[in-house]
């Protein structure tokens, strides 16, 4: 059976993490992923602590397996949510959208495993001065906020520098991606877009359908001029946003133009004017399935590939 040291570290069966997506990392998806042997992760986004507390409670109602909470570092409620995850003794915390350095010691003291998302070597080196348990290296193929480096060149560079297990993210949706990540030296994967197209995910059906319809060139990056580029499915919103950026519309007006768009798109189902955060791998996803099926298929496909690779040595 496919297993890596990361599984033991996180007390999970399969080395698969579900990205803590804002609005979509709810207890329905999180508990389904954890029950299927992966690590489900609640996505805080900019939600208030009361919402996060409810999600933790509901997740624990549905599963006795480990799960995580993703802290979005730009959240206005960040400090309150950190207090909350410490109080609730959440097993794992992942972080995104910046440098979590100052919050790591208190989380570690509470016995929480801390796994930051990084997209640069510089951030990894800084974080390794503190105690972290693993690191998620996310390439620019991923949906939502993205860095500059693609997954294929990023992972081996992070692996060579990191002293903790590396989890690969960005551009992975099947067993081939998992096997590739393991080849690059990662001990596991994190997926977002693949888990949106599951029966358990509460995303609007029309948003799920847009992912199923997407082809290889159907995502784009906006917001580069604001300093926090974001990958979404192309639609009227991304075209308008890019035109405004090109015209040199001031950052404040651009930010205002984007307010509320994510919710409208992925929960409200406004596929033309909403922000449909999704990764480049959307083009590979053709079916909505239960979480268990997604995870089982990825594991058996990766196992088949690893066996097949063995035959290339001519010794089988």
């Amino acid at each position: 059976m496919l297993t890596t040291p990361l599984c033991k570290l996180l007390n999970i069966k399969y080395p698969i993490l579900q990205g803590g997506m804002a609005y979509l990392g709810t207890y329905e998806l999180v508990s389904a992923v954890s029950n299927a042997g992966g690590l489900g992760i609640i996505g805080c986004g900019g939600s208030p602590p009361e919402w996060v507390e409810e999600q933790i409670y509901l997740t624990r109602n549905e599963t006795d397996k480990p799960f995580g909470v993703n802290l979005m570092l730009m959240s206005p409620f960040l400090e309150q949510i950190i207090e909350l995850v410490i109080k609730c003794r959440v097993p794992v915390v992942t972080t995104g959208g910046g440098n979590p350095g100052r919050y790591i010691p208190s989380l570690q003291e509470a016995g929480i495993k801390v796994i930051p998302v990084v997209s640069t070597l510089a951030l990894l080196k800084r974080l390794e001065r503190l105690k972290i348990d693993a690191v998620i290296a996310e390439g620019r193929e991923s949906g939502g906020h993205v860095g500059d480096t693609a997954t294929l060149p990023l992972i081996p560079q992070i692996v060579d520098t990191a002293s903790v297990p590396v989890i690969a993210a960005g551009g992975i949706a099947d067993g081939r991606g998992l096997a590739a990540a393991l080849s690059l030296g990662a001990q596991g994967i994190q997926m977002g877009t693949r888990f949106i197209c599951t029966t358990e995910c509460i995303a609007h059906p029309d948003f799920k359908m847009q992912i199923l319809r997407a082809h290889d060139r159907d995502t784009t990056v906006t917001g580069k001029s604001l300093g926090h580029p974001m990958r979404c499915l192309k639609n009227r919103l991304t075209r308008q946003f890019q035109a405004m950026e090109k015209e040199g519309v001031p950052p404040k007006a651009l930010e205002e133009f984007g307010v509320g768009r994510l919710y409208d798109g992925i929960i409200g189902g406004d596929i033309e004017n909403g922000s449909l955060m999704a990764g480049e791998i959307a083009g590979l996803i053709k079916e909505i399935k239960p979480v268990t099926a997604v995870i089982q298929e990825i594991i058996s496909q990766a196992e088949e590939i690893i066996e097949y690779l063995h035959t290339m040595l001519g010794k089988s």
Partner: protein
Amino acid sequence: MVTVYEKVKKVVEEQVGMDGEEISATTSFAEDLNLDSLDLMELMMAIEEKFSDPSSKLEVPDEVVEKMQTIQDVVDYVEETLKVREK
């Protein structure tokens, strides 16, 4: 002897890929050099390396990095830290 300012300037030139003549003590990282927070972090890692040796390491805390706006800010911080170290 090479001053702290000259050393810092050299690191910035190498990191940003700019001619030294375009850089001065008042050069702003965000406004003049167009560096974002990740670029600034990378630059500070290079500064730390430049002023570290096997016997003593320079480590600039996150909250200090976030406040660095100009080359002079970096020079002041490095000079102050080196002074404390010598004592």
